[in-house]
């Protein structure tokens, strides 16, 4: 029995090739992901552990800048806990070999054009600590020397090269304060992972660093190196006794390494999970192909199997023989996939390295779990997918050996299938609709639960859907392509199960692609229209690192050439009676307001801002029963009571907070509002001259971003499109598998329909006509899958957007018809490409031998 099975595998080598390839691709993706993430993880860990090699104990100030990327707005300078004295005391500990006071914080460096080098989140500054010889072992200078005085700076190699700076050049740097010029005294190299992974590091002498990044006399951390013979734990104990009792954190080098390892593992595992999800999608798509292949193989071997049964083979034996066949394919393909996966892992690593030289590299890691996991997944997927066809094979009655002709497709099986599908799809769609009309996390759960249910339901229903959907294009096909078109359509619906599982592979891909695209597009267009509708300002000024703007900047910008109107945007969260504290009140300059912001007033007027009154949006007004003249009682940050008088009601828009107040009112009651943005209107609109004059007026600070509204929209849509492209790339693998599936189905159909094709040729259909027939069948099946996928994707996106809309006003489903058409076009192309080989084979078939086939 098993020998029969194995002989079958060999006999059907060609026809099993696509199945094996599908499994191979899926498992290669899995193995590649595992190899790549393990390799990356180890390389990153290695690079971190070298950078902590001289740290035995780290004493760091909490609540301030710990030297990490700057992202918090936590108040600084409450207590100067780590001072020069602390450093000295720690240096004097019996176990301390060396103690190094570290100053670290956000520091932006401008390139020659005045723009920030690199990214704000990885721009750092630190102090240079020269030893007796004037060198700092932590930062060996490749050129020049370290900074010794204010007005001097050293840069890391990559940053200097990127901006084209050489020793002796004047470089503009900015810490937390104003930007200033410094002379580049040296260029250094370092193994600091934050720097090697593409960051910028500017070194200053300790005094300057303290002044610019913290405050005079203060350190952000102290690094202790233990004497030989003193363990990290011992030094930690000694340090704990001397270090300030509060406001510091002590960690041993080992703890730091462990923490980094954990962080690396977390970030790598996030990436790994995402990649594995996509690998899973490819494998899932592969399942359809495997099921299809085995079903077709069994249909072709119906007589052979029936004969086996007739001569006494039991049902179980038939099932088993099919499963053994699947097992053989699964093993071969998974081993191939594993090997290919190691290759993919290596390829990905060098790809990442070529994009970003700072990424650490290392030898490939092929963990045992990768090997076992890949093989088990590949074999299981193949065998489980073959299970259903195998069971069906065992149901073939022995008499089938005597009957002749092709078996008509059973409608009986489809009735059950359709009922199940209808229930699943109905329940899923119901849940989604319920979710789409609800709000909050509850609605989200409904969607999360309903979406997969609806998807599975639709997949189960695909055979049922294939006939009516494909019938829609029937007249067009026959009209344009004549008989081959008509035959193609009929062949496409001939075996609904087969058509469905072939198309399903594309449906999955297209559902995901479309849903992501529609969501991305809708969010982008919501943001665009939000900005476009309400913002009249030409430029917005903000800090690249998202920090607070210093309040004197507004005045500086106002004095710049070509500026017509300016307003800083205040944000305060006052406790309003009956509303609470979670609603931000936005403050604008009353005089400049109309030139910067465009509100559609329902009642009252923006002029009310001039009388220290506030404006509220329609939704807020309705909710709290407010109208012009109503008042709200609020408590300002410092406890002062404020009465807000409504002077106007405007149509709600996402661009502006529900409550708008004049700057004067806010600042009179709250001297420290959060200011993150200054809006500017130019005399001549958004000109580059205006941009330059704003930059000049604010001291050409590289952290300061001066962007037009369009820039902001563009930046945002760039993020979205980068994300989408990544998704497309990852889903590409699933599409490749889907193409294999189409090729597979077509090739087998051509084989099965040999006699028909021979007969068509005999009665006068040209080779071209045969080719066209096969190609059109392929296109029809692909488009069927794609259309269902697009519709499903749009529906899913619509429901997801409905839920998101409660958080982002003005978010509506915007279907990018261009992209959708492109997807359908690509699906048709996929169909064409997949049909190339089967169509060629069909056209080349010898008429006589195909007619003689029995």
């Amino acid at each position, binding site marked *: 029995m098993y020998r029969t099975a194995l002989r079958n595998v060999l006999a059907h080598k060609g026809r099993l090739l696509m199945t094996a390839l599908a499994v191979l691709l899926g498992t290669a993706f899995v193995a590649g992901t595992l190899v790549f993430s393990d390799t990356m993880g180890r390389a990153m860990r290695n690079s971190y552990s070298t950078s902590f090699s001289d740290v035995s104990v780290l004493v760091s100030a909490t609540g301030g800048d710990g030297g990490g990327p700057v992202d918090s707005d936590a108040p600084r300078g409450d207590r100067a806990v780590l001072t020069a004295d602390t450093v000295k005391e720690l240096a004097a500990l019996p176990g301390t070999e060396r103690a190094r006071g570290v100053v670290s914080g956000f520091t932006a460096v401008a390139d020659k054009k005045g723009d920030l080098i690199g990214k704000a989140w990885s721009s750092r500054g630190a102090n240079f600590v020269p030893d007796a010889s004037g060198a700092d072992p932590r930062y060996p200078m490749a050129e020049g020397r370290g900074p010794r005085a204010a007005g001097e700076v050293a840069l890391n190699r990559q940053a200097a090269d990127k901006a084209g700076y050489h020793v002796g050049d004047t470089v503009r740097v900015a810490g937390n304060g104003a930007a200033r010029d410094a002379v580049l005294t040296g260029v250094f190299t370092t193994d600091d992972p934050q720097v090697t992974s593409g960051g910028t590091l500017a070194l200053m002498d300790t005094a300057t660093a303290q002044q610019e990044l913290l405050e005079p006399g203060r350190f952000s951390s102290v690094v202790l190196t233990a004497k030989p013979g003193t363990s990290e734990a011992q030094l930690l104990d000694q340090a704990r006794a001397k270090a300030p009792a509060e406001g510091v954190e002590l960690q041993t080098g080992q703890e730091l390494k462990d923490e980094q390892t954990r962080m690396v593992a977390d970030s790598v595992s996030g990436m790994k999970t995402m990649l594995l999800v996509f690998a899973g999608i490819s494998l899932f798509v592969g399942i359809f192909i495997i099921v299809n292949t085995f079903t077709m193989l069994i249909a072709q071997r119906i007589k052979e199997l029936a004969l086996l049964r007739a001569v006494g083979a039991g049902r179980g034996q038939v099932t088993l023989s099919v499963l053994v066949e699947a097992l053989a394919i699964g093993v071969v393909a998974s081993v191939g996939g594993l090997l290919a996966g190691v290759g993919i892992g290596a390829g990905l690593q060098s790809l990442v390295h070529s994009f970003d030289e700072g990424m650490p590299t290392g030898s490939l890691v092929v963990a045992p779990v990768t090997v076992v996991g890949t093989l088990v997944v590949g074999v299981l997927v193949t065998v489980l997918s073959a299970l259903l066809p195998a069971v069906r094979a065992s149901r073939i009655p022995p008499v089938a050996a005597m009957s002749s002709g*092709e078996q*008509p497709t059973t409608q009986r099986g489809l009735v059950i299938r359709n009922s199940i599908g209808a229930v699943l799809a109905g329940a899923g769609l119901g849940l989604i609709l319920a979710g789409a009309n609800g709000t909050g996390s509850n609605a989200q759960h409904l969607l999360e639960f309903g979406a997969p249910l609806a998807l599975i339901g639709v997949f189960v229903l695909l055979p049922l859907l294939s006939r009516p959907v494909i019938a829609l294009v029937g007249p067009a096909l026959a009209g344009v392509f004549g008989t081959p078109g008509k035959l193609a359509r009929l062949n496409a619906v001939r075996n609904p199960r087969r058509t469905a599982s072939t198309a399903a592979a594309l449906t999955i891909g297209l559902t995901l692609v479309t849903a992501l695209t529609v969501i991305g597009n809708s969010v982008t267009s919501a943001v665009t229209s939000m900005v476009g509708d309400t913002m009249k300002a030409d430029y917005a000024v903000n800090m690249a690192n998202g920090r607070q703007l210093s309040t004197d900047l507004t005045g500086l910008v106002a004095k710049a050439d070509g500026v017509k109107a300016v307003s800083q945007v205040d944000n305060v969260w006052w406790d309003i009676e009956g509303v609470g504290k979670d609603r931000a009140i936005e403050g604008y300059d009353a005089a400049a307001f109309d030139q910067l912001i465009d509100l559609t007033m329902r009642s009252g007027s923006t002029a009310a801002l001039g009388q220290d009154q506030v404006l509220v949006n329609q939704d807020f007004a309705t909710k709290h029963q407010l109208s012009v003249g109503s008042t709200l009682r609020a408590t300002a940050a410092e406890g002062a009571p404020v009465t807000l008088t409504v002077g106007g009601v405007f149509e709600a828009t996402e661009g502006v907070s529900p409550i708008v107040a004049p700057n004067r009112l806010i600042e009179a009651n709250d001297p420290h509002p959060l200011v993150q943005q200054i809006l500017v209107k130019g005399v001549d609109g958004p000109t580059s001259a205006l941009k330059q004059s704003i930059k000049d007026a604010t001291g050409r600070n590289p952290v300061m971003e001066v962007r037009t509204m369009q820039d902001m929209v563009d930046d945002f849509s760039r993020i979205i499109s980068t994300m989408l492209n990544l998704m497309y790339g990852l889903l590409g693998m699933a599409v490749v598998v889907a193409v294999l599936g189409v090729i597979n189905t077509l090739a087998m159909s051509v084989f099965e329909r040999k006699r*028909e094709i021979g*007969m*068509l040729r005999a009665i*006068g259909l*040209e080779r071209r006509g045969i080719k066209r027939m096969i190609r059109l069948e392929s296109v029809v099946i692909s488009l069927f899958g794609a259309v269902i996928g697009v519709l499903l994707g749009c529906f899913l996106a619509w429901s997801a957007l409905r839920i998101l809309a409660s958080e982002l006003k003005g978010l509506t489903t915007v279907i990018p018809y261009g992209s959708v058409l492109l997807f359908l076009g690509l699906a048709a192309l996929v169909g064409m490409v997949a049909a190339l080989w089967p169509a060629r084979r069909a056209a080349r078939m010898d008429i*006589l031998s195909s007619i003689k086939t029995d």
Partner: protein
Amino acid sequence: MSTSTAYAAHTGVAAARATGLNKVYGEGETRVVALDDVSVAFGQGEFTAIMGPSGSGKSTLMHCMAGLDAVSSGSATIGDTELVGLKDKQLTRLRRDKIGFIFQAFNLLPTLTALENITLPMDIAGRKVDRAWLDRVVETVGLSGRLSHRPAQLSGGQQQRVACARALASKPEIIFADEPTGNLDSRSGAEILSFLRNSVRELGQTVVMVTHDPVAASYADRVVFLADGRIVDELHHPTADSVLDRMRRFDAKGRTS
């Protein structure tokens, strides 16, 4: 009647003609001469049966004459058209426009209805269907009530009738039928055969049919006997008995020689 008369036997115009036709399969050890210098003409409006033992080259002759297979040497013409030297595309056109086929089995596309199967050659050619002719053909084969059925819903005999109707509907110059009744019971077979004969008598169709069955051959106007790739005899206005008799005779001859 002798072998030599086979070529010039009939007086009318030839619908198809083979002259010195040779067909050789394989090379060296496996070389098989399937047709050995065959010259034969099939007259217009004539119903010819080809008979002979298995492997004698009947199907090969038909395939060569119908442009389905390439000849090794010699000439084959349909009407005025010489088949030798035609490209695949021209041959396909020729089959489509001038030749009708009825095979032993599997003549129909399972996805098309009976009517669609009948008009298939014309649909492929993009030619308009002659309604009146089609109705007449359909009526003659007795399929009027079954036109919207698919092949799976028809009996074997009905399927062959559809195949006959298809071959006739496009008014080809010649119809080739390879054992069209081979898979049918004698009653259905008789129906098909009388139908073919009627189409010759009443519609003026030319039909060439390969058969093993003396009764089937007796429906023809003339029987050509093949043996070992050569035409060995022919018989005009055959009856089942005369055919059987002739077959016995060269069975005996074959044994004695």
